[in-house]
């Protein structure tokens, strides 16, 4: 649950009221008034990631950007290249785009991850084929917060002359990103994840060496022909402003969020036994914490903490009754997957909110454990793995 930064709203208001011209109309003053704004937006986004403003294209969000990158690159080079590499822990829109490409005759390698959530670089090296056109690996995972070794992945892709796309929705504006340093060729950016407006995102598409992609949307040829459609000026302005603010606040935010995260985890773990943190302790973004509370089911805990915005990897919380595929990919025990809760700490999270959440969490975990037959059996020294459960 990410609120919009008030500074972002301030930047957008003029474009929702006075300056409503179509930014692509160059023949009248209304267009001139609205026209320069998206340009400024692209510069602000570009600055945040070390790119050139001409390499930034506005989209409706990171989902569209991911679709564009994966499907667009794959389809453009399909006459000679039909293989893509990605990971098992990507966001659904990347995985779904890959599945869709498989029905078009492409071959996809879904790299597994280690127990800590990170990919094995040797496995990545081994996965390359002469007809690989793209590698797509997310920078920071949205469920468990782990940070992939982007620098190393970029190096490897460059060496193999394969394009490297990263879904950086959870990373941009929160940790330093540089497309040249990290040898990134395509990057997905989300507006609402960095306290900007919903309904807008961006995609970075490298110009040198030039990345070509087949557009998803046909039309008037806006955005270098890569993404037709009138650029939503107020939203683009908002995203630009969000990026500029993020650049200013990044260091301070990171420090404060790290402290709050440490506070939350330490307090919970000192009061409650049998709590497991999912994902690498070190290579992570601190603001996304995923904890499993053994012997307590996730949805029941979420219900108890319903005045706090949290989520769970439990099957009970998903419409498909499937537990989190990310937790399954890191080898989490099934029971622990059902017992997981994700805590998100951000720029506007206060210390009071963290303390309140911690207190309620401790209180309800204890209460739910009293109600749990698993907890009782463990207290009695029974090995849960020896129980024969009735199947349904």
């Amino acid at each position, binding site marked *: 649950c990410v609120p919009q930064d008030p500074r972002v709203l301030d930047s957008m208001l003029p474009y929702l009221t006075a300056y409503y011209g179509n930014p692509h109309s160059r023949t009248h003053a209304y267009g001139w008034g609205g026209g320069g704004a998206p340009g400024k937006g692209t510069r602000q986004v570009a600055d945040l990631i070390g790119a050139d403003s001409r390499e930034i294209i506005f989209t409706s969000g990171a989902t569209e950007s991911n679709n564009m990158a994966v499907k667009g690159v794959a389809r453009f080079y399909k006459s000679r290249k039909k293989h893509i590499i990605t990971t098992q822990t990507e966001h659904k829109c990347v995985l779904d785009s890959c599945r869709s490409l498989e029905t078009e005759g492409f071959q996809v390698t879904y790299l597994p991850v280690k127990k800590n959530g990170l990919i094995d670089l040797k496995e990545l090296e081994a996965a390359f084929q002469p007809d690989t056109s793209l590698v797509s690996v997310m920078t920071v995972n949205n469920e468990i917060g782990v940070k992939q070794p982007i620098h190393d992945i970029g190096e490897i892709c460059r060496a193999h002359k394969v394009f490297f796309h990263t879904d950086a929705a959870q990373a941009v504006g929160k940790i330093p990103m540089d497309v040249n340093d990290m040898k990134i060729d395509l990057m997905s950016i989300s507006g609402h994840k960095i306290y900007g407006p919903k309904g807008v995102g961006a995609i970075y598409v490298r110009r040198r060496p030039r990345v070509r992609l087949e557009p998803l949307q046909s039309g008037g040829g806006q955005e270098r022909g890569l993404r037709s459609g009138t650029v939503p000026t107020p939203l683009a302005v908002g995203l630009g402003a969000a990026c500029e603010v993020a650049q200013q606040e990044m260091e301070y935010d990171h420090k404060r969020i790290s402290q709050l995260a440490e506070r939350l985890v330490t307090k919970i773990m000192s009061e409650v036994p049998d709590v497991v943190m999912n994902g690498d302790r070190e290579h992570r973004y601190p603001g996304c914490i995923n904890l499993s509370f053994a012997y307590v089911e996730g949805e029941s805990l979420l219900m108890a903490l319903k005045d706090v915005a949290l989520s769970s990897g439990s099957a*009970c919380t998903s419409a498909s009754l499937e537990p989190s595929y990310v937790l399954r990919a890191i080898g989490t025990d099934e029971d622990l997957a059902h017992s997981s809760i994700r805590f998100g700490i951000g720029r506007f999270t206060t210390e009071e909110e963290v303390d309140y959440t911690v207190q309620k969490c401790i209180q309800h975990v204890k209460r739910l454990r009293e109600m749990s037959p698993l907890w009782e059996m463990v207290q009695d020294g029974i090995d849960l793995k020896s129980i024969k459960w009735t199947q*349904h």
Partner: protein
Amino acid sequence: LQVEVDENGKIVDARFKTFGCGSAIASSSLATEWVKGKTVDEALKIKNTDIAKELCLPPVKLHCSMLAEDAIKAALADYRLKQDPNKEESEKKA
């Protein structure tokens, strides 16, 4: 599900412990309320659809009510098993 049955075959107390979501906990809790005061045969008539209707469970949570019905049946089956050959009052665990 734990039930206490008196010498007349009437359920005088019932307790539950559940590892599950809110709907599972509610279904289990309702089951213990409903079996209290019933005979074993009456309790065996409780259907998961009755539990689901009482709690207004949405379709995606229907299987939670099944959990409760199965627990009632398992507890009472276990009680029946332990009655042979004794006819004493006993406390059962399901």
